[in-house]
């Protein structure tokens, strides 16, 4: 097999930190778009956060959205141009804090959209503050003693499980990208989430537990261990819903 750069990915060095998951997931999205031959009719919504510059790496149309509003913007695009393949690429703060309402209601309307949800359990871009998905006990810039539900920091928000309960949602899977087999599973899930949209099946979401070594203050290897030992216990991997 010939390992090449996908057509949907530009020949560019990313600005992401060593060990970050964004580069891997960008590539997987690009590979899937190539394989489905939909590059010219795909529109991505870039998040607010580290991946806002995704359009510098992807070679298809991309729109920014205000923080949290990606699925509202995606809804507007898809409804006026149903033949386009529209996906949002969002972080945990974007999708599950400031944009919870937009996320929940786009899903509940069964918008025929694909959502790639990057969960790195912190606000990486702004200096690794607590996210809705920060693990209990996890130290961040705004939980210096570790996240404490007893101190009022709340619990890790299992947004994917919540969304899976909605009738408008057809597919939810949680994966990670810390081993080659995880990467392959993630690609399969992303492929399915795009195929569901092409087949007009409604709302699909793939949550990727994604390492943020810089934000977590860990080496890339230790960050992978953190996902394996800690984060994937709060957020169990696997298919959460599949009605496609």
């Amino acid at each position: 097999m010939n390992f090449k750069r996908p057509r949907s990915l530009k020949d560019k060095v990313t600005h992401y930190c060593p060990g970050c998951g964004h580069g891997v997931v960008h590539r997987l999205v690009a590979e899937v778009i190539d394989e489905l031959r939909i590059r010219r009719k795909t529109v991505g919504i870039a998040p607010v956060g580290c991946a806002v510059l995704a359009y510098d790496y992807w070679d298809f149309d991309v729109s920014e959205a205000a923080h949290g509003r990606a699925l509202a913007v995606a809804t507007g695009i898809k409804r006026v141009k149903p033949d386009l393949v529209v996906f949002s690429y969002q972080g945990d703060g974007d999708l599950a804090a400031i944009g919870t309402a937009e996320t929940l209601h786009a899903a509940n309307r069964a918008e025929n959209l694909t959502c790639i949800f990057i969960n790195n359990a912190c606000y990486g871009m702004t200096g690794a503050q607590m996210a809705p998905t920060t693990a209990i006990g996890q130290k961040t810039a705004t939980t210096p003693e570790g996240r404490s539900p007893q101190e009022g920091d709340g619990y890790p928000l299992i947004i994917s499980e919540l969304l899976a309960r909605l009738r408008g949602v057809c597919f939810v899977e949680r994966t990670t990208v810390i081993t080659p087999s995880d990467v392959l599973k993630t690609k399969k899930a992303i492929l399915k989430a795009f195929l569901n949209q092409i087949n007009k099946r409604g709302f699909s979401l793939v949550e990727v537990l994604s390492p943020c070594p810089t934000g977590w203050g860990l080496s890339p290897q230790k960050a992978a261990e953190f996902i394996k030992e800690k984060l994937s216990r709060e957020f169990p991997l696997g298919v959460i819903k599949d009605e496609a």
Partner: protein
Amino acid sequence: MKEQNKVFITGNEAVGKAAIDAGCQFYAGYPITPQNELTAYMSRQMRKAGRVFIQAESELAAVNMVFGAAAAGARAMTSSSSPGISLKQEGISYLAGAELPAVIVNAQRGGPGLGNIGPSQSDYFQATRGGGHGDYRTIVLAPTSVEEAYTFTCLAFDLADFYRTPVVILSDAIIGQMAEGIVFRPPSRKYSLPPKDWALGRAKGQQNIIRSLYLGERVLEKHNLKLQRKYRLIERKEVRFRQHLPREASLLIVAYGSMYRLAKDIAVELEGKKNKKSVGIFCPLSLWPFPYKALAQACARVKNVLVLEMSYGQMLEDVKLALGRQKPIYFFGRAGGEVPEVDEVCRFILKHKLI
């Protein structure tokens, strides 16, 4: 035009009819009084016309859906009333930054906060100064009748597309909820609208990006200067106003929107009292760009100027900018959902010997 072609319709519905006639393909809204007639109208008519209507989960979602539809090249509109328009400011700033065309309708009500559902003109500052964060302006059109609610909304879509900028229709609970008999005559198009080759999903080979983020050194400044050049062009080209200036007028009332109607009644009342046409009226139709020069010229012909608003003096500041210290400027305003009465304004004019 034949009388039987007249339709009795509210201002809010006339805005909706205009949007349909102007080819609006996408509308998203959220219920709030006093603009509910518009949302209800759009829910019926948009789907009937094979276009998109969404009752959004919030004002924020509605304006961001409009952002998406506009980014995909569609004509798109949202509407609300004052508290909801505050929520939409995020999206309006992003629309302006990303240079996306859209129409935003504000049927103003009393504020601040939840205020009440009476008519008001207290969102003038917000509408004419940008409203959200960053250096931007939106074109603001203020209809004085149901007919103008229709024609201005038709015009707003053309202006939005021509300049790639959000356009605000600033009405209020009076203009929005009152019904008048009108004939639907879309204004003749005077703008040649370029193809939207910047929009998403064109599949022309090049990558289209809709953005308002510019991180590099001086890159955002360059973008800002481009926006400013556009705003200067709009200030030169898109000033709109109406004036009635009888030769013997000694007082000029400056009023917009529904207060223009009150000013007309006041002029008639005082003409009866004084037996001469001593009151002129100047009515800005575009609140941004504001007709500074035309107002200054009109004021040069009278002794006194009275600004009449349903606020505590917001347009007043633009009138002061137009006139400087060249003329005494009086102000009469009520807000909080209350409408000034003809009698009390006449008494004010006579008491201060403005005519």
